[in-house]
């Protein structure tokens, strides 16, 4: 995907060390023009440090950052063609909304009349056109965030950096803002780089996601690829929910891997192009919504199946999660079923003896 787009940000061998601790460890990334790029990872994985290095608020210990063809080493934060939306929004409390938005233009010496006009346009863009005269303490959290957005967009940066922009909003507003951010990005055409620890946020907004752990990028892929074909156990576990079966690769027939797992009667069969060597340890990762529950074993012998007993049911509204005991040596397997009928007519209940089945195309086999 990135090959189609001309690169706007190139990060080459960038590390940031605090003493012996590497917050960011040899990261290489290329972000394309007009992308909505997400840095996703648990707290402390170095994603915010990486973002701050793009903004120039931290300097890399090693490596090079090129933005729009220009080497950023030695370019201070106030001269970089990027702007940032901070986690706390950092709206100046002593300035009116209009002055906040116009501040970036004011310090760059833009004429007063133009500042007013452009600030007003930016406010209209985030649907706060009538709020210019208000003070920040008269705004709600969501409105303050829009002010921070307008303030960062008004200078027409090459790249807009967003540091956990939605984490302080309530669930409903967060969902709405996700859509608005995507629309806004399409309207202005600026490259967005967002840092988040929320996988839903990254999956729903980003065109590409870099999953980070311990200062390194573990996988870089579009959302669907990341979810369906995770490369490591960490990524599979971090994005969404997953059932993990550890086992040994027993056989490989063409594209089909046979993985024998302790606690399962039959080996798990998975069809995937890249296959691990026979005899190696591997893990089968299986999403809860890809498993089906039935009373009878499936007739098709190519379908993976195993008997089990429902131990717990978690009702979540649109889906129910069934926790199924397959064997004493395995953790409970989670199976998600959409609640198509009302819950009173649930097809299965506690202590039911059932069969779990999933096709060969459902899971992935991971070697690390």
């Amino acid at each position, binding site marked *: 995907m990135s090959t189609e787009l001309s690169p706007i940000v190139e990060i080459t061998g960038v590390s940031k060390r605090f003493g012996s601790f590497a917050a960011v460890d040899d990261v290489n990334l290329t972000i394309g023009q007009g992308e909505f790029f997400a840095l996703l990872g648990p707290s402390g994985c170095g994603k915010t440090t990486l973002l701050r290095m793009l903004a120039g608020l931290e300097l890399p210990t090693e490596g090079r950052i090129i933005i729009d063809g220009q080497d950023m080493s030695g370019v201070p934060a*106030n001269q970089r063609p990027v*702007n940032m939306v*901070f986690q706390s929004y950092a709206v100046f409390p002593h300035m009116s909304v209009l002055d906040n938005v116009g*501040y*970036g233009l004011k310090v760059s010496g833009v004429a007063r009349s133009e500042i007013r006009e452009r600030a007003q346009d930016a406010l209209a863009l985030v649907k706060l056109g009538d709020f210019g005269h208000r*003070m920040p303490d008269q705004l709600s959290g969501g409105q303050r965030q829009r002010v921070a957005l307008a303030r960062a967009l008004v200078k027409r940066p090459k790249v807009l950096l967003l540091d956990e922009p939605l984490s302080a909003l309530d669930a409903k507003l967060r969902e709405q803002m996700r859509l608005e951010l995507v629309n806004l990005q399409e309207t202005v055409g600026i490259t967005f780089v967002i840092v988040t620890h929320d996988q839903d946020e990254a999956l729903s907004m980003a065109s590409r996601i870099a999953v980070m752990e311990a200062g390194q990028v573990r996988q870089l892929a579009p959302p669907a690829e990341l979810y369906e074909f995770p490369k490591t156990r960490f990524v599979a576990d971090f994005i969404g929910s997953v059932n993990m079966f550890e086992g040994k690769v027993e056989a490989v027939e063409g594209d089909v891997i046979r993985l024998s797992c302790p606690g399962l009667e039959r080996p798990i069969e998975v069809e995937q192009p890249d296959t691990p060597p026979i005899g190696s340890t591997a893990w089968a990762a299986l999403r809860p919504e890809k498993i089906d529950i039935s009373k009878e074993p499936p007739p098709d012998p190519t379908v993976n199946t195993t008997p089990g007993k429902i131990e717990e049911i978690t009702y979540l509204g649109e889906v129910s999660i069934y926790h199924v005991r397959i064997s004493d040596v395995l953790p409970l397997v989670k199976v998600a079923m959409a609640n198509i009928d009302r819950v009173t007519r649930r097809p299965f209940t506690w202590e039911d003896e059932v069969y779990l089945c999933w096709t060969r195309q459902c899971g992935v086999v991971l070697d690390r």
Partner: protein
Amino acid sequence: MNLAKVFRNREPIGPLEYTRRTWMRLTLLATFVFLYAPIVTLVAFSFNDSRRNIVWRGFSLKYYEQALANDGLIEAFVNSLTIAFVQTIIATILGALTALLLWRFRFPFRGGYEGAMALPIVIPEICMGVAMLAFFSRIGWPTDLPWPLNLSAITIAHVSFSFPFVAVVVRARLEGFNRELSEAAQDLGATEWQVFRDVMVPFMRPGLVAGALLAFTLSLDDFVITFFTSGPDTVTFPVKVYSMVRFSVTPEVNAASTVLIAMTVVLTVLALWLQSRAKLKPEEVAG
């Protein structure tokens, strides 16, 4: 029954309703009496038509006229105000910069520096007065300069004991500063100086005003340190009043003191008003 309830509040006293407890009310009353009764007496007797401060003999403004005609007293008054104004400006700037330095940077012996800075707050004034006297005579600070330069020694002494108060107040204010604010300004293209002017100073303003007020009053009524650093030509108001009182407390002293009290009250109210106006200003402009 309702009426009875209105007149006699029978509801039990809540755990936080301190003002409904008798012992609390009595403490409050006693505090007010001990704090303000002497001041009220002083002000009242400045209008007394008697040479002595004991019996009320009728209203008169003649001691105000007398105080105004007392050149020594007026000179001391002007000296005090001059010192207070000049030293407040210096102490506020110095204190604010010290607070910023301690808040923003990490450097060796920072803790020691912070402790040393707070010393003038805890050192007994008498020690500081003697130290100042010894210091100025040791380095041979000139005493025969023309006015207002002859006040420089006192001004320097006042700055040295009042700037730590400003620093402490501003430092406390800075603890609540969100660093993302200055980073946001920087990110938007502001230089170090613009960040300081547009973000840091407005944030510090309440601390600066409070610190300046504190420094001003500390300077205006300081006796001990001033006494040691003043010469025969550089008498300040408290020192002058002291010398007058040594003979007897005349209503003239009362009158001069009342003027001083009135001035400090007016200045405080002015400062508070300015502060609240600065807060409302952008709204007024928009409205």
